């Protein structure tokens, strides 16, 4: 409880957000900017060279995740926020993956029914 009391007191003292806000070297932004360009070029090349199958899907998803991660972590400064905010914002979208799984099952079922009853011709 003593610990809780001290953190409470510290919290009260630190309620004002830093006056100067987020300050990071310009170089960091330029490096991330460069990487975003490179990763976008790679994504485009995946299509340009007609890569197919699992290689295509995994590369597209990899470049997409890297780009999204760089934007959120550095450009949106999530890497420097406190974990309480990071978890509150980044965990809920992860749960959308459950929704994705549900809709994959649903779409497979719909496709099966359509092929079974609409494309099979008479009878």
């Amino acid at each position, binding site marked *: 409880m003593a610990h809780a009391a001290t953190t409470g007191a510290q919290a009260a003292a630190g309620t004002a957000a830093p006056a100067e806000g987020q*300050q990071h070297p310009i170089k960091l932004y330029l490096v991330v900017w460069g990487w975003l360009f490179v990763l976008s070029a790679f994504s485009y090349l995946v299509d340009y060279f007609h890569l197919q199958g699992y290689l295509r899907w995994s590369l597209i998803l990899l470049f*997409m995740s890297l780009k999204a991660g760089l934007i959120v972590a550095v450009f949106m400064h999530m890497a420097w926020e406190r974990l309480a905010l990071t978890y509150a914002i980044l965990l809920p979208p992860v749960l959308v993956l459950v929704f994705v799984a549900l809709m994959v099952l649903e779409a497979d079922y719909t496709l099966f029914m359509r092929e079974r009853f609409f494309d099979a011709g008479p009878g």
Partner: protein
Amino acid sequence: MPDTTPTHARDAITLPAGGAGGVVADWSSDQRAFKSASWGKAMMWIFLLSDTFIFGCFLLSYMTVRMSTTEPWPNPSEVFALEIGGTHLPLILIAIMTFVLISSSGTMAMAVNYGYRRDRVKTAVLMLVTAAFGATFVGMQAFEWSKLIHEGVRPWENPWGAAQFGSSFFMITGFHGTHVTIGVIFLLIIARKVWRGDFDQGKPGFFTSRKGCYEIVEITGLYWHFVDLVWVFIFALFYLW
């Protein structure tokens, strides 16, 4: 002013510990849970979270109709190809739009940085450059829409295959384009305030009677980077898939 100003050294003294214990302490504490973020920044993040769900639902419904249709899906690589100087380039318009939007994100990040250095001219100019990139993006999207509509793409039919292609395309890119347009307007309003020196003289900020400060540049930036972020997903899942 030096490039690195360790403002976070001060946070380490005034803020409670980090890690999992810090999360519990922040969330169970009195008055405010987000101790390092101002109310404006926290509210923008929560708005962006809700917007994430909206775009998530659009992309999910696109996935569902694409997986469940028995008709072949039109090949985006060919649909969005252009002839430039006699060369057939697949998906080139979308690639250029992607680079335009990423460039705008870079200039926005620099604007935020110069804002916190209280360099109002550079901040305003970089925000205007960002807005110009955004307007270019919307212009290219208008070109893309007119081209597709001219070729006979409608929300209910298209010449190449599954009808759901048109409805998904217009819904997703239309909603994203609207976000970019709103972002451009938002950028212009804030850039004007920065240019006039409102945040140096302590005039009221945007939608508030409190003293304005350069943090609004970062909050505008959060919205703008989010628009770029959504495009990353649309580019990968709609155009490349």
